[in-house]
């Protein structure tokens, strides 16, 4: 029996080591730049689990930002050292990670994690410790209605307004072209639900009737029945409120049940570039609309340099949106630190106040914030065209003049 106990104990140790080693565990690195003691910046990211896709991209974005800052002489003349932990897409782990970063690793500054689900609890840890918390994702409006003073969202708009530009485009279509009915299959998630509801509110106003609205849980694997239920309602338009995994599942299921709505909008998954096309087949992406915060082709300040550096460090043609968002979060943090010339814990509320009063130029465009830390801007609208993700709205940011009118899968 004693032997058994030892064996089990040994296995648990191996398991813990396996879970914590490799590139999934804590990662601390600094690169040559300025002199003096490096500035430690801590973040916890979902490097494993269901948000690992965006988590990995966000880590890359932070690393590009770190490299570029250090190459340019550092932050306040000091190197930047990132301390990144893996929260395994778990709300409890992300809380203990940020607590450990603040009190154990004693980081000077924080950066946010990915997804509203994880930023909701993580931002509360930062607020309790009066640490500035710039998050690269986490657009759920509830994050900003808790009276927090330290949380800032480094994208253009909160989730409930993410699809506004597209919904208004649909609402303003000529009577004959405008869809009459809509279905909203939605993941039970603090990001996707408000996005989907925000779009529904605008479309309802325009007289587009909701014929299906159902929510499924994050551990759903089988989407055929959901796709079948959507098909049975024959909606003209489908708004799929998805993250990545389920987004692939539901798109594949819609093809399997042979249902093609006239219009299709999907949250999050289509912004994953090649991974999205690989997941559902490039021929099935034609005409899919989505909201996106970053365009690789944008002439925003620093964007070409960011894209080049990303490609140099991580290869590949496409730069994931989440990497760009993470980079922008770094830019926002950098702007307030450089303007206030401090990283002291006692001054973090001052850093936050500065952000409330100023606009920051980022690769996503200029960002500015309301009193509660929610951003004031508008998202870009992307569309998959001929196997490539293009920006189609608003017109001044568009990378192509053409908008494919409707969803046209099958090549």
């Amino acid at each position, binding site marked *: 029996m004693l032997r058994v106990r030892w064996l089990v104990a040994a296995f648990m140790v191996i398991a813990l080591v396996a879970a914590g080693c490799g590139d999934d565990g804590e990662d601390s690195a600094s690169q040559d730049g300025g002199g003096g003691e490096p500035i430690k910046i801590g973040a916890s990211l979902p490097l494993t689990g269901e948000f690992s896709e965006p988590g990995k991209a966000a880590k890359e974005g932070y690393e590009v930002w770190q490299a570029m800052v250090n190459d340019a002489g550092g932050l306040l003349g000091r190197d930047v050292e990132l301390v990144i932990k893996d929260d395994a897409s778990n709300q409890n782990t992300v809380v203990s990670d940020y607590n450990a970063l603040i009190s154990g690793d004693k980081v000077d500054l924080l950066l946010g994690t990915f997804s509203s689900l994880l930023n909701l609890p993580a931002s509360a840890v930062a607020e309790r410790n009066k640490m500035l918390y710039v998050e690269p994702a986490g657009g759920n409006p509830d994050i900003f209605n808790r009276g927090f003073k330290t949380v800032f969202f480094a994208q253009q708009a909160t989730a409930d307004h993410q699809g506004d530009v597209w919904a208004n485009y649909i609402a303003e279509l000529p009577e004959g072209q405008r869809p009459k009915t809509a279905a909203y299959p939605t993941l039970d998630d603090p990001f996707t639900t408000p996005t989907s509801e925000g779009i529904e509110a605008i479309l309802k106003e325009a007289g587009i009737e909701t014929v299906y609205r159902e929510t499924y849980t994050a551990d759903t*694997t089988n989407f055929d029945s959901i796709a079948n239920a959507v098909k049975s309602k024959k909606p003209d338009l489908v708004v799929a409120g998805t993250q990545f995994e389920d987004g692939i599942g539901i798109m594949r299921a819609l093809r399997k049940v042979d249902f093609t709505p006239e219009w299709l909008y999907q949250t999050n998954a289509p912004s994953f570039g090649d991974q999205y096309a690989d997941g559902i087949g490039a021929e099935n992406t034609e005409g899919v609309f989505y909201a996106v915060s970053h365009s690789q082709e944008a002439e925003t300040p620093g964007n070409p340099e960011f894209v080049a550096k990303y490609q140099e460090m991580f290869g590949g043609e496409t730069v994931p949106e989440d990497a760009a968002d993470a980079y922008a979060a770094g830019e926002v943090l950098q702007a307030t630190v450089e303007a206030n010339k401090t990283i002291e814990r006692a001054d973090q509320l001052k850093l936050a106040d500065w952000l409330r009063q100023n606009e920051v130029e980022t690769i996503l465009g200029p960002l500015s914030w309301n009193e509660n830390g929610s951003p004031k801007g508008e998202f870009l609208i992307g569309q998959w065209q001929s196997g490539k993700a293009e920006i189609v709205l608003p017109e001044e940011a568009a990378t192509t003049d053409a908008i494919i009118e409707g969803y046209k899968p099958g090549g």
Partner: protein
Amino acid sequence: MTQLVQTLILGLLVGGVYALLASGLTLIFGVMRVINIAHGAFLILAAFLTYSIWTAIELDPLASVVFTTPVMFAFGWILYLATVRRIRGAHMSSSVLLTFAIALVLEGVMGFVWGNTSHSVRPDYFNESYTIGDLFLPKAQVYGFALAAIVLGSLYLILTRTWLGRAIRASAFNPQGAALVGVNVSAVSALTFAIGVGAAGAGGSIVAVLYPFLPGSHYQWIARLLSIVVLGGLGSLPGAAIGALILGIAEAATVTYISPAWATAVPYVVIFVVLLVRPQGLMGTRLREDVAAA
């Protein structure tokens, strides 16, 4: 009416695949009283192997069962000798701890080898369907179901028509009695564990075609598979098959007629109901704890 028939078809097709996935789990429990929490991880490992074979030589993922099944069988055998054998005779809870640890290690290894990102295997037919009138049958599901039926049928024939099968059943029913009549219970246990993991190998190839997967996906599967085995009766292969079909239909019907939000609760509701109404499951027998096997 079409809606109802369609729901039944989708439920049955997915239930058939669940049956194969759960078969190894119930077999391993039946013979060894080992609750194999790592079964979901074995499935995902086989799915990743299928993915690698598909990307390397473009072999049809369902045809790759001819590789994944023997590879996983061998893996199961080695794993049994290295780890599971050592907790034979220990309380069932030890097996839960041990196999949970194996699942965590496998998850870490898969993340290291293939990365913690979502993977999909897309043969030409992955999003095509057969249509009969207003009804549709997704091709991937139909092929997956057929393959699952073949593997399950073979497994059933092995168990009922061969000396090995009789030895396995005898070991499950009464290990001491089996040993008395000359069955090498230890060797049979190793073989059963390997067969169980081999079945997960075949199942994993099917899962790879039907759903996107990443190393952490095994948690979703083990919960569902355990509920199937509990419903069918721990240790009963026909029970697992019937339980799987019922669960498949119950999930599909819940999505269609109640709400997809409740679909993932179905396995847990099933466990509650079974434990309250018929703790031994549909086709299981009550465990005799008073003369528990050594």
